[in-house]
């Protein structure tokens, strides 16, 4: 009758196995449906030239990281130094500022006029880029967050890896840290940027 004392262990192991499987297939880890598709269209003002609109077509030609961020996002703050480092290594990063004012839980944007919201957003972004440095090739500002919906953004930071043809190759949810970059993202970047002449991270 000794075997019966092993039953709990077996059941438990089964449970652990299921959990491990559950982790692997975690729904929040599924690749974005956008992977393999062209970057969805947007037409958003440039931060440095607010009267000029930027579309994904204009960004084509060289691979880039589309980094969705906001100054109220604590994780973005953690991520910023790593972005600075990557920019220093020659990675082209496009900043996609997401709901700068109305996304901020500490601001009641419902009582702001659109002009005030815009003015405030620019001031906040300016301060951020001055203090922490500017890793971005170009920054686009999506005040309402409507364009972000097409990218399936539901939190910040999120980073899309877009190749020279404008196709999304990978989506990173959550902040990019040194460890995550070195661990898996670097290879993904190399895969889309490596072939390009004179580009960053040329295949060695």
């Amino acid at each position, binding site marked *: 009758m000794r075997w019966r004392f092993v039953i709990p262990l077996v059941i438990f192991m089964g449970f652990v196995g299921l959990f491990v499987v559950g982790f692997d297939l975690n*729904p*929040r880890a599924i690749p*974005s*449906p*956008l992977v393999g*598709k062209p970057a969805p269209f947007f037409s958003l003002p440039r931060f440095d030239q607010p009267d000029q609109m930027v579309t994904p077509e204009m960004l084509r030609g060289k691979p880039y990281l589309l980094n969705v961020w906001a100054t109220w*996002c604590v994780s973005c703050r953690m991520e910023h130094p790593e972005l600075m480092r990557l920019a220093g290594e020659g990675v082209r990063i496009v900043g996609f500022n997401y709901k700068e004012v109305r*996304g901020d*839980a500490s601001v009641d944007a419902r009582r702001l006029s659109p002009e005030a919201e815009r003015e405030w957003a620019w001031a906040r972004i300016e301060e951020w880029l001055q203090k922490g440095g500017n890793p971005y090739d170009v920054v686009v500002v999506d005040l309402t967050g409507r364009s972000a*919906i*097409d990218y*399936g953004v*539901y*939190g*910040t930071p999120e980073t899309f890896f877009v190749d020279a043809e404008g196709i999304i190759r990978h989506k990173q949810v959550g902040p990019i840290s040194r460890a995550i970059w070195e661990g898996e993202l670097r290879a993904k970047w190399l895969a889309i940027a490596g072939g390009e002449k004179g580009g960053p991270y040329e295949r060695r």
Partner: protein
Amino acid sequence: MRGRHKRLVIVAVGVALLAAAVGLILSAFRENLVFFITPSEVAAGKAQVGQFFRVGGLVERGSLRREEDGVTVYFRITDTVHGLTVVYRGALPDLFAEGQGAVAEGVLRADGVMEAKRVLAKHDETYMPPEAAAAVEQAKRAAQSMKE
């Protein structure tokens, strides 16, 4: 012998009890599972009339309508491709708003409207309920693959 006999009875009764309990749980389980169905799937006929299920997505802008009594509300939940009209009687949750993520739980009527027993809104400022987010992503995936 009496002792062994007794033991046998106990084991038998115990096993019967356990089997009954397990049977009870499993049958209760089957009957009370609530499936999550996206608006697109509803449009494709995946939900039966009279079925109790959950639907998630964004509350379509401009779709919120209130009846004279003030407590009966109509709105559409959309995954950006298809929408489902929901009717609900009662106070809506704090974070319920047009253009925001929401989940409704209820029964599909013959006229294609969901009669909701419960409405949940997103519970954090920046994030959608995962089910609502999943519905939107799924619909987009489908829409994109259709374009190609």
